[in-house]
């Protein structure tokens, strides 16, 4: 059934000149699933993700994200998804509160709704004391947790996380994953990239891209069986080293 899948990609491709960055990938992501999108640097993950979030047109193929077509309804996709990147997530020279209000406004939430949501967010993350501090003064781990919550302000059906935990300390990294579990538990789909292979184990299903193609896609358990490996790290090394 279509409404059970929040992403349906069919033969999705992207070429730059004579270079094929994404080569006819097909896959589906279910509602409420934690989907790990793995691959080596340069395998095409970022290009694929850009097409799915509606900021890059595919060269060929089809894709539907939360019920909208990536070719003709990119603007509707943007309104109904959340996105958090590692490089840019929050404005450093705005306070925590200002960032929340700013992003709430961008997503068209009413002032009254923003007020309620921002208080709830600040309480839940225990940020009362730093709510009026500049984001630049906060540790990276806090920023990433705030950025994640901000990306969920408008109750998107799916959230895309691009290496959300790079460089974050191990305890905060785990707290971040507990937030991911909770989000998925509440019905929001989580689409996540990471270079930490222990995090790949936390996903319901994992795809691994090699040179623009999806070379493997299954639950971590089945991938480990398929590649006769003890850990996802071994699966990754076997696949990507060929």
């Amino acid at each position, binding site marked *: 059934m279509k409404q059970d899948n929040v992403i349906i990609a069919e033969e999705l491709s992207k070429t730059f000149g004579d270079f094929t960055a994404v080569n006819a990938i097909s896959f589906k992501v279910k509602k409420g699933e934690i989907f790990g999108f793995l691959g080596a*640097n340069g395998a095409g993950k970022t290009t694929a993700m850009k097409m799915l979030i509606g900021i890059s047109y595919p060269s060929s193929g089809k894709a539907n994200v939360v019920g909208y077509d990536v070719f003709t309804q990119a603007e509707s996709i943007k309104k109904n998804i959340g996105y958090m990147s*590692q490089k840019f997530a929050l404005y450093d020279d705005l306070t925590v509160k200002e960032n929340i209000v700013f992003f709430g406004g961008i997503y068209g939430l009413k002032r009254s709704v923003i007020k309620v949501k921002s208080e709830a967010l600040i309480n839940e993350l225990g940020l009362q004391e730093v709510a009026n501090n500049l984001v630049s003064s906060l540790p990276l781990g806090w920023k990433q947790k705030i950025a994640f919550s901000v990306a969920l302000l408008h109750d998107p059906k799916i959230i895309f996380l691009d290496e959300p935990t790079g460089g*974050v*300390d191990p*305890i905060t990294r785990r707290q971040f994953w507990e937030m991911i579990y909770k989000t998925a538990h509440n019905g929001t789909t989580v689409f996540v990239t990471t270079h930490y292979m222990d995090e790949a184990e936390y996903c319901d299903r994992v795809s691994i891209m090699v040179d623009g193609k999806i070379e493997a896609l299954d639950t971590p358990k089945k991938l480990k069986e398929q590649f006769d490996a003890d850990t996802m790290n071994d699966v990754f090394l076997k696949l990507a080293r060929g």
Partner: protein
Amino acid sequence: MSILVKNISKSYGDLIALKNLTLEVKEGELFGLIGPDGAGKTSLFRILTTLLIADEGTATVGDFDVISEYKEIRNSVGYMPGQFSLYQDLTVEENLNFFATIFGTTVEENYDLIKDIYIQIEPFKNRRAGKLSGGMKQKLALCCALIHNPKVLFLDEPTTGVDPVSRKEFWEMLKRLQQKGITILVSTPYMDEAALCDRIALIQHGKILDIESPQRIVENFPKKIFNVKASNMYQLIKSLKSYENNYSVYPFGEFIHYTDKRENFSKEELKLYLESQNLSEITIESTHPTIEDVFMELTKE
């Protein structure tokens, strides 16, 4: 050449980057600085490479003092900063020639040292550094840091954001360089890489938590660790956290690493509790601590 750091402190305004830090890296050692962003790793690198002056304390690289003999240090160490400092609009070959010339040498003179690494990027020698992939930039930056045949190599997070395959290859390169007699100080936020070092310092908030060999660090872990697994991970985490005898509950790949407050912990009792929480397919097995377990124990609040 060895590295000696004695009671080094450094602050930026109110922010304390390093607090009375002392460590020694022996000649020929592969030494890892392990800690998250903001731990103070980069400040220490910049002090040791003579690019930053500490507020307090002393440091020597070889027998040279980082302040009074900075010129000698600069000539004998290689430094690969976190954001690979390459000239984006010079080609691969031009970058390498440039760094060789600055140090008064030639690529040919020290080619043996970089050969293994350089041949991997040689097919792209006419490409501008700005157009290289992350993995290739990393290799070029390492070549540039090595081209004057340094005695000590400083590598600040060389593998951050790099995929597991390239990371593994990079560490294999480091091991080969160590065999050539180069002392290496390397920092990383990836705890699994710590096991590949001779000795490591765990660092957070500008302070050293522990310095030991990776084997000793895990041997000193004070608790028994159990791998716990059940059908529903999210529910399992919640249930373990509300278990009154839990000391720590951390997801670790497909398992939860669980430690108990009590000396005489009973697996059966925990299993019964989890079953009462409507969890199924429960397994509880003892396991060995990893460096990440140790790090979390030392930073636990």
